[in-house]
């Protein structure tokens, strides 16, 4: 095809991950356009709390991506500062029983070998860090690398900083391909955008976009509710959650069960999140979910019992069967790159994802091995795209 190109890369999705892809691709010298059927941060990004967590990740590819992202977030914070409400408040994971504490300490020791800063906190020091924490906890671990951004602002500001042309309210209806099957752009309800590369940062709808290109990517939604309280003077200083390791009798693996994350924000409200339910795209209020959040939060901070929740909202985390995102080129469709399926960690993992995508777009070696994130890893037969 000799059609004139619109740009070098079309990023589909104006959420946090799309914004990071656009920023790093633009900084790699590429001409980028971002297209989204809704507004900026209209999907999972706008429904999240903005957790940048390393504390909840076990050693492995996701933790490596989180650590890379944490470093990049520090740099972005220097650039964009308060505009994205970046707050390096640190995380505090607490355990209510000696058994849970022992398991938490083991978990933290393994994380330390992978490069995480994880500082044991004795029971009698917990209240120095969190004066309003419930009494009687066995101890905890402090994670200074955990941080926070306001996700919608972060996406909007990164998009702005990228200089990419933004097309919101424009739905991608097809992926244009050459006779040989390579990507040559996208078709939208308001005209075509021609580019040799398309990045799928469509979040929960990433599977649908992949299907438009003829590739299978089994992204599914997982609902979560977040509770937001009335604004308060700062009483919760860290991201605080409880970790209990429940021995799974059927196997010798231990399942980590966490309470909701409770955290104060610069703006005043305490955020409590989030539930995890597989119910499709059902946005209707679930009082059982909200009850569980409230009870979990009060268990950590008893003063919250009398604090009022102003709102609750649902979001849909995009997840893949093995709970790792799809990042990198799709060998089944040359020119198609995936950056989706980050489940509940997309805000935190976005800069690393964007950087890896930008490197591969520019033909450079990425900082991390992309093998665990291969988009075609769910194909049942070799090379098959069912």
């Amino acid at each position, binding site marked *: 095809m000799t059609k004139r190109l619109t740009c070098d890369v079309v990023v589909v999705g104006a959420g946090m991950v799309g914004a990071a892809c656009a920023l790093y691709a633009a900084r790699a010298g590429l001409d980028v356009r971002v297209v989204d059927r809704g*507004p*900026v941060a*209209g999907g999972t990004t706008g429904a999240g709390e903005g957790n940048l967590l390393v504390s909840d990740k076990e050693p492995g590819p996701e933790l490596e991506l989180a650590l890379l992202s944490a470093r990049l977030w520090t740099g972005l914070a220097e650039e964009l500062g308060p505009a994205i409400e970046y707050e390096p408040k640190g995380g505090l994971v607490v355990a209510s029983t000696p058994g849970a504490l022992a398991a938490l300490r083991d978990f933290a020791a393994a994380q330390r070998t992978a490069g995480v800063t994880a500082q044991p906190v004795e029971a009698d020091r917990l209240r120095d860090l969190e004066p309003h924490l419930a009494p009687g906890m066995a101890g905890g671990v402090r994670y200074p690398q955990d941080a926070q951004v306001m996700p*919608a602002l972060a996406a909007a500001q990164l998009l702005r900083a990228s200089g990419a042309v933004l097309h919101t309210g424009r739905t991608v209806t097809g992926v244009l391909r050459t006779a040989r099957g390579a990507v040559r752009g996208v078709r939208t309800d308001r005209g075509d955008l021609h580019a040799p590369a398309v990045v799928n940062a469509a979040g929960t709808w990433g599977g649908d976009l992949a299907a438009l290109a003829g590739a299978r990517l089994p992204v599914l939604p997982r609902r979560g509710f977040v*509770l937001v309280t009335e*604004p308060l003077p700062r009483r919760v200083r860290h991201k605080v959650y409880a970790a209990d390791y429940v021995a799974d009798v059927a196997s010798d693996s231990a399942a980590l069960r966490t309470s909701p994350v409770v955290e104060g924000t610069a703006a005043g409200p305490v955020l409590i999140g989030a539930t995890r339910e597989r119910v499709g795209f059902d946005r209707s*209020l679930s*009082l059982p979910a909200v*009850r569980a959040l409230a009870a979990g939060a009060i268990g950590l901070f008893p003063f919250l019992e009398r604090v009022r*929740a102003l709102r609750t909202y649902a979001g849909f985390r995009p997840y893949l069967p093995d709970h790792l995102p799809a990042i990198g080129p799709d060998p089944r469709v040359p020119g198609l790159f995936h950056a989706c399926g980050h489940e509940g960690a997309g805000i935190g993992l976005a800069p690393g994802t964007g950087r890896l995508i930008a490197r591969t777009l520019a033909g450079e070696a990425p900082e991390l091995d992309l093998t665990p994130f291969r988009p075609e890893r769910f194909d049942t037969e070799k090379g098959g795209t069912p």
Partner: protein
Amino acid sequence: MTERPHLAVVGAGPAGLAAALAAAARGVRVTLVDAAGQAGGQFYRQPAAALGARRPKALHHQWRTWERLRDGLDRQRSAGRIEHLTDHHVWCVERLTGDGTFGVHALRGPAQEEGVTVRADAVLLATGGYERVLPFPGWTLPGVVTAGGAQAMLKGGLVLPGRTAVVAGTGPLLLPVAAGLAAAGARVAALVESAGPAALLRRAPALAGQPGKLAEGAGYATRLLRHGVRTLARHTVVAAHGTERLTAVTVAALDGAGRVRPGASRRVRCDTLAVGHGMLPHTDLAETLGCTLSGTAVRVDAEQRTDVPGVWAAGEATGVGGAGLALAEGHIAGRSAAARLRGTAPDPRGWAAAARSRTRLREFAAALDAVYAPPPGWAERVPDDTVVCRCEEVTAGEVRGAVDRLGAADLRTVKLLSRAGMGWCQGRMCAPGVAGLTGCPLTAGRRPFARPVPLGVLAALPESD
């Protein structure tokens, strides 16, 4: 099931009262759940008994209708057919997945700290409306109140909000507010209405169908004249002044297109400004139940049923139209709910008179709506430094920036990127203003909690869902 079917009516204003009485008279057990200490809603708001008001009806019209409703409620309560729960602030109505019945979750008492759940076979939402507030410089000064707020103070507390008042904005509520203030002894320096008399004339056919309504308006106008209240049609308040509290307002004349006429403004001294721009329907409970809205109002069929089985709606929640319309809709809704709950199809011939008045009053309301729209240029007149969202202290400039600099194009994204509407009132106050400033359509707010709920109440919710 030998027990009588149970209907929960949320709201004890004209619509809720009419509905509760109609249903109770037809063999249904009714629980009437209302936030106020006494029945009546905003329209028939009563002074607290302790105030010993001698002539509360001086502040009301349609007193006879109220007496009929009040006596009916007393009778049905004595007969055990209606239970009236006062001081119950409903924060959520939940449709239980198992059997399709409902849980009406409320907070009890003035402190709203104790959770109560009423189980019912069906619900009827008569949640009323709230005032549309539009920002202008100085609107957050003490002394500036909403028109409905001033009325509530008069009716409920018998207190005068101030001594020298200006009543401003647009809509049929301004007349009774100005008349009520004057009758209670305030000096009303001016009634400032942005609509012009010509606009009323253009809608003459629909309005002429309501001679009673026009006479009501004429009655207020006469009372205003008697009190020497100056009415400034096609004028608007462009700014409120004062440092500690309100001391004066600037009133400007508008041209035919609703723009401020240059050089035609004056300063009026006052310590109270009652400002209103009409009403919007309260739809939070309906939205959370999954009821479809049409525009900003709950959509209902000819029987006042929403599209969620077992949920009826009546009154301002289904479209703002005043107490008369609310009574008609409530009556129809109550009869329909009673019949359906007893497993029969209602006969609309039974409520033919109410249906006729509903049709007529809806046409009247639509005509008024067209006349009393905020003047088109109001949003451009709001300077960037004016606070728009007072809960979160977000200015007009920040709201505009969310659109111009960050690419927001709908109210939700404007909220996410500017914090306008994230605070205590959840945008109930500022959403119309933000919509006007940004050009985003005013969409329903998606507020699962109709009011703030203590986390302890949430954590103690019954498990039986």
